[in-house]
């Protein structure tokens, strides 16, 4: 946006000189930092292990076959647990996310000054802590088991659902709401007739999308004792039973594929 006079001709450039120099300097700093970090990491890497990596990988891969097919029969229970953790966690999250979202959306919050910041804080804190960390904390509090997993998933998902939902609420068309208000409808009626129909598709989409993510996340929670298939995975790896590990990985992949398919179908049919 720089226009300058050069021999009486107006010259236009995208940026003026000082700004352009600053940008080049920025690139220079970035490249320098990258090189310094590269050197630091390579000095501290034990390269013998790295060169050895392909051999190790091939070794593990060969030990994974043939998968121990019979093992799958002892997995049905934990698969069921995993799905339940994801589903119940999502349900809890949705119940808590809906009011949070309404408090966080600028056009529906009871108070922009007080309530909105609290809602936003809930969203940020829920989103910034990984479900594995939530699970670690909850296992310490509640003891190991499925309940810790459900709550961990729930807490992690509130922020995600509430954030997407409040963005959807802020994007509704205000004239529809005005029209309902103008009929003399009460506050709740305005909500039910003017706002809810507008955000319903987004709401359904967000819910199944998060459920689908949660299926994936809950496969790992067993690692810290919060129930589900992860417990078997960690035990099998610790005991070097690679033929079981391969079965578990396959089961996880199939579960995730199915959940993605279900969520895609549901979303498609709603929107």
């Amino acid at each position, binding site marked *: 946006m720089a226009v300058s006079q050069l021999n009486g001709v107006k010259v236009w450039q995208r940026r003026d000189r000082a700004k352009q120099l600053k940008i080049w300097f920025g690139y220079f700093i970035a490249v320098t930092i990258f090189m310094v970090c590269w050197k630091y990491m390579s000095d501290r890497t034990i390269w013998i292990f790295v060169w050895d990596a392909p051999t190790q990988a091939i070794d593990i891969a060969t030990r994974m076959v043939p998968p121990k097919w019979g093992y799958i029969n002892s997995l049905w229970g934990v698969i069921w647990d995993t799905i339940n953790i994801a589903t119940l966690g999502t349900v809890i999250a949705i119940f808590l996310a809906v009011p949070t979202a309404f408090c966080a959306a600028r056009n529906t919050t009871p108070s922009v000054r007080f309530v909105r910041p609290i809602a936003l804080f809930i969203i940020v804190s829920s989103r910034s802590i990984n479900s594995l960390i939530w699970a670690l904390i909850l296992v310490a509090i509640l003891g190991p088991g499925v309940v810790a997993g459900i709550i961990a998933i729930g807490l992690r998902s509130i922020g995600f659902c509430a954030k997407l939902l409040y963005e959807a609420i802020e994007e509704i*068309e205000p*004239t*529809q709401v*005005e*029209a*309902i*208000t*103008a*009929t*003399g*409808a*009460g506050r*709740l*009626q305005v909500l*039910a*007739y*003017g706002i809810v*129909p*507008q955000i*319903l*598709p987004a709401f359904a989409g967000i819910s199944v999308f998060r459920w689908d993510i949660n299926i994936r996340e809950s496969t790992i929670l067993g690692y810290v004792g919060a129930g589900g298939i992860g417990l078997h995975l960690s035990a099998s790896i610790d005991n070097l039973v690679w033929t079981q590990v391969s079965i578990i990985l396959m089961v996880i992949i199939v579960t995730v594929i199915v959940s993605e398919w279900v969520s895609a179908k549901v979303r498609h049919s709603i929107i």
Partner: protein
Amino acid sequence: MLRLDSLSKRYQTGDLALSNVTLEVPDSQVMALIGPSGAGKSTLIRCINRLVEPTEGTITLNGQELTSLNSSKLRLARRHMGMIFQEYALVERLSVMENVLSGRLGFVGFWRSYFRKFPQSDVDEAFRLLERVGLDHMVDKRADELSGGQRQRVGICRALIQDPNILLIDEPTASLDPKTSRQIMRLICELCKERKLSAIINIHDVMLAQMFAQRIVGLQMGEIVYDGPPNEITPDVLTKIYGEEDWEATIETVDEDDDENVDEPEQVKDEHHPGIDRDRMSGLT
């Protein structure tokens, strides 16, 4: 009777949208409000049902002062004012019937409305109105499946099912083609006549305003610069309202009755509903 008394509105941005407007609309009068973009027409209409809070002045409807009502009293008062919007403002994802019935929300409790258990009398009235505007075969369609003209009819039904004392209408025809515009304007005016309703219609089309309104008020920069019958609109008046321009072609010169007769067949072969018997229908409403 609606009375605005030295009404002013200054938006938070500092724009003075209305300054000291005094206006009286007697019962069953259809009044057109014309004026250039930004003159404050929408603001004036929205001050009446307080979608916009007036800064100064008072508004009285049938003896009740609207400007001083608290929010629950305002809600009750809004039930008696029907509003029709330029972009229809139907709830897109609800059906035609739900949209019409939403006009009754002020009269039913939350749970009844939530479960769509409106009193049978409301449902009867909704069917009657939809039939009157020629949409009775579209009851179950979703609002976003309708054409502009059809949506505006649904909007009219939603306003009328409130059984209002006054209609506030903000550019009802601005998104419609010329013919549909006339049909909608005619429909509105007929319904007002049948029900002895007064109406304020914001409109950009001076010719339409002259054709259908009993009185025209010209607004310019938030002030009333013309108030009189439609046939006294002259190029000078339009210049005063809108500014310098060649106005001769804009003004309706044809005798009004002639025009009614010319347009009559249009109304009958109405989009999807050929040959509705209007006299019979108007008897019902």
